């Protein structure tokens, strides 16, 4: 790979090459991997699991955190001496697997093996034969991911230190009480803390021996405030005695170190808090001397925790430069000199170096110590801390990208003039695009939209529920819906299509968590469609239904309500041909329009009326009783006069109870009855009966009321 230009150098921004360990028994396999990775990484090779373990062992001698020297292991499974799984077991026991990610590469494709590998903690599994580019990418990704994860873990820990800052106020108050009894300036605690932290900062620059991260330094600073809490048990007379203490008094005075530590140790809770642990060290050992001649335990050198060493030095410095009942204050220079010369105790030479090196800063700082400065200092710590994490730049970049995406989204949303929306179930909330909200007269964010009267004024409650149910009844595989409804655009009711995607969580089982989508105005096209549908279903001259559509409606009616009784009525105009012949066709049309109007007025809402063609009309109606009366009324309302033309009709009626309940039978029977009516002299209506199957007219009615009665008689 190193000489091949067709592979992009993915890793070229690395300053220091990271190291990868390849564990595989086949020389050839190792060579292939090594060849692919050698340009970007240092490659170590091991022939089997045992050799791999040996290498890790060797590395971990000098580097307890293996990740500092080894970034990744590529591990085969089948090997002599010790196979890949056995090596993983050992890495687990030794906790190495926590430090170094492992990618398993094997021709073993059996899923049990892959699962076992993951169970043992491998980060990835690559099957043989592998693709060079994939191996390369996975290696990079694994290394980056692992580094990021570790960084994040430490960032989270660093966040916690901020929490400790908050408790520092309480500590300050507590320690001030101690000071108050001591008759000290009230600034002693603050001074000690400031100097301690400054010294520690310097020490951290000089050596990494004490592992002084910013959060550790801050913790020690906070805990330093408690260094003298043990003095609370010392008699005020001794504490504030102007002259030299007697041996006995001095012994009591000295007891404050151990008493303070005991007080902390006696805490029934918080024993494991780092702050308590550090405060314990400081209380107990801030009077120890580096030469081992201090109290209470006579610890020597670095047996004394660094926290206590620093606080001891800061305590001595501040005591020297402050006025006490038993002495005047020394100047900064005098104090530093006295300490450096060993007149005021024995200190770690490295710590003394720190003091002399930052002497000037301490003098400046002490000249102007006040609590606000302290805050500023803390702020600086936080800033430094943030600067230390390069990842923040990365996450800032992510935020920028996110912001960019958001801007892009809202720009396009505004451009598109669309009502876009996003819905979440928890919290129940709809957010609308700015344009959409304005257009609908709604807020951009609406809480609890399924119970919002404002929302209901735009989309009525039933439709809202129906939309919600439609979304809920999707599945993660088929989350998209299309939902037509009428939206109220600030008074303008328009047909709208809502297209949306339900959002399902990736949990098992998946949960419906909301939806996103947009509303499209389809009013115009819908209206056009409605119009076309109307055109297709209606007779253009009279506006009644046409025959084909009437038949469809009638069939639907019969099917949906099979228990009802129906009447099929067919009628036509008597002598209509003469109207056309005598007055012209347009007059004939006017007659038909007039008749259609009459017909519309004489039927009920649910009845179906149609022009079957020419001058023939069809009525289909549902009835419960007294059908004769209804027919008679309709018949008479249709007869009359249009201009000079007398309107007379012949009508045939078929009733469903007496006939097969299908359209054709009813239509045929009504037609037979009409034929009978015509044969009997027109201008009348006629009910179908069985005798007409031979076109024989049995019951002809001419004059309405009588006719109806006649028919009744004959039917009973």
């Amino acid at each position, binding site marked *: *790979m190193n*000489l*091949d230009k*067709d*592979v992009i150098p993915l890793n070229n921004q690395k300053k220091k090459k990271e190291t990868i360990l390849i564990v595989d*028994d*086949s*020389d*050839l*396999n190792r*060579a*292939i991997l090594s*060849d*692919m990775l050698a340009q970007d990484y240092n490659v170590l090779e091991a022939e089997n699991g045992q050799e791999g373990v040996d290498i890790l062992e060797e590395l971990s001698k000098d580097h307890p955190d293996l990740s500092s020297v080894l970034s990744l292991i590529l591990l*085969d499974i*089948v*090997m*002599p001496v010790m196979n890949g799984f056995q090596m993983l077991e050992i890495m687990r026991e030794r906790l190495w697997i926590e430090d170094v990610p492992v990618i398993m590469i*094997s*021709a073993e494709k059996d899923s049990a093996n892959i699962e076992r590998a993951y169970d043992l903690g491998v980060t990835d599994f690559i099957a*043989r*034969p*592998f*693709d*060079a*580019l994939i191996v390369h990418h996975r290696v990079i990704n694994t290394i980056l991911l692992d580094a990021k994860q570790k960084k994040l873990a430490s960032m989270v820990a660093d966040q916690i230190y901020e929490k400790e800052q908050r408790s520092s106020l309480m500590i300050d108050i507590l320690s001030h009480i101690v000071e108050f009894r001591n008759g000290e300036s009230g600034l002693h605690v603050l001074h000690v803390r400031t100097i301690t932290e400054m010294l520690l900062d310097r020490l951290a620059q000089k050596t990494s021996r004490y592992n002084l991260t910013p959060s550790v330094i801050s913790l020690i600073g906070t805990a330093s405030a408690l260094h003298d809490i043990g003095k609370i048990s010392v008699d005020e007379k001794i504490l504030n005695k102007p002259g030299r203490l007697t041996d006995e008094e001095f012994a009591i005075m000295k007891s404050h170190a151990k008493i303070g530590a005991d007080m902390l140790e006696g805490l029934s809770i918080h024993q494991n808090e780092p702050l308590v642990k550090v405060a314990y060290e400081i209380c107990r050992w801030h009077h120890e001397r580096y030469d081992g001649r201090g109290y209470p335990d006579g610890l020597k050198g670095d047996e004394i925790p660094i926290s206590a060493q620093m606080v001891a030095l800061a305590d001595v410095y501040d005591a020297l430069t402050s006025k006490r009942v038993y002495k005047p204050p020394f100047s900064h220079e005098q104090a530093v000199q006295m300490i450096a010369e060993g007149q005021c105790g024995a200190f770690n030479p490295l710590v003394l170096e720190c003091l002399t090196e930052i002497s000037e800063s301490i003098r400046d700082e002490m000249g102007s110590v006040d609590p606000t400065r302290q805050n500023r200092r803390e702020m600086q710590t936080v800033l430094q801390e943030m600067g230390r994490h390069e990842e923040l730049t990365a996450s800032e970049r992510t935020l920028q990208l996110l912001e960019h995406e958001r801007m892009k989204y809202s720009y396009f949303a505004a451009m598109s003039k669309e009502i876009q929306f996003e819905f979440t179930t928890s919290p129940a909330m709809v957010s609308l695009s700015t344009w959409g909200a304005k257009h609908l007269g709604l807020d951009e964010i609406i809480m609890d939209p399924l119970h919002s009267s404002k929302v209901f004024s735009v989309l009525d409650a039933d439709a809202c529920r129906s939309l919600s149910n439609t979304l809920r009844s999707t599945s993660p595989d088929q989350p998209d819906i299309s939902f037509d409804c009428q939206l109220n655009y600030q008074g303008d009711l328009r047909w709208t299509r809502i297209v949306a995607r339900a959002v399902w969580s990736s949990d098992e089982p998946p949960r419906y968590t909301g939806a996103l989508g947009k509303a499209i105005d389809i009013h115009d096209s819908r209206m056009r469609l409605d119009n076309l549908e109307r055109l297709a279903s209606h007779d253009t001259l009279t506006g009644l239904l046409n025959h084909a559509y009437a038949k469809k409606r009638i069939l639907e009616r019969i099917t949906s309500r099979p228990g009802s009784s129906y009447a099929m009525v067919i009628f036509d105009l008597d002598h209509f041909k003469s109207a056309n012949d005598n007055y012209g066709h347009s007059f004939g049309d006017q007659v038909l329009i007039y008749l259609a109007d009459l017909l519309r007025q004489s039927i009920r809402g649910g009845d179906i009326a149609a022009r079957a063609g020419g001058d023939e009309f069809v009525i289909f109606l549902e009835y419960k009783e007294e059908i004769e009366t209804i027919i008679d009324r309709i018949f008479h309302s249709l007869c009359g006069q249009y201009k000079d033309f007398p309107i007379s009709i012949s009508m045939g009626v078929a009733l469903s109870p007496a006939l097969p309940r299908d359209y054709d039978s009813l239509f045929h029977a009504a037609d037979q009855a009409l034929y009978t009516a015509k044969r009997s002299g027109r201008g009348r209506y006629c009910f179908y009966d069985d005798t007409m199957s031979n076109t024989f007219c049995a019951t002809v009615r001419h004059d309405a009321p009588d006719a109806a009665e006649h028919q009744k008689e004959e039917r009973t």
Partner: protein
Amino acid sequence: MTLQECYAAMGGDYNDAIGRLRSERLVQKFVLKFAEDGSYSLLQSSLADSNYDEAFRAAHTIKGVCQNLSLTRLADSSSALCESLRGGTPPASGLAEQVSTDYQETISAIQTFREGISG
């Protein structure tokens, strides 16, 4: 003989190898190196000693390398042999012989190829 012709003679899939390893140079380098790999002689000696665990590992290695280099024919026969040896059992008859035949063909193709490029 080109590398492509060599692959044809070995019963391998030249395009697949190039597609995965992304470089003719790399494929050529490792094909040549394949002839020097000791796994085959380890397989033979392990089979002769009836050390089937060792034979399994050797067959497994041959299979893995052949898969990586897309030497399909030998990968298939060594895979069959490998599965047969899994768990330390003696191989089913004919499998080891098939691997030998395929291996010899592969090696002779590589040698012809090598002579071609050095000559």
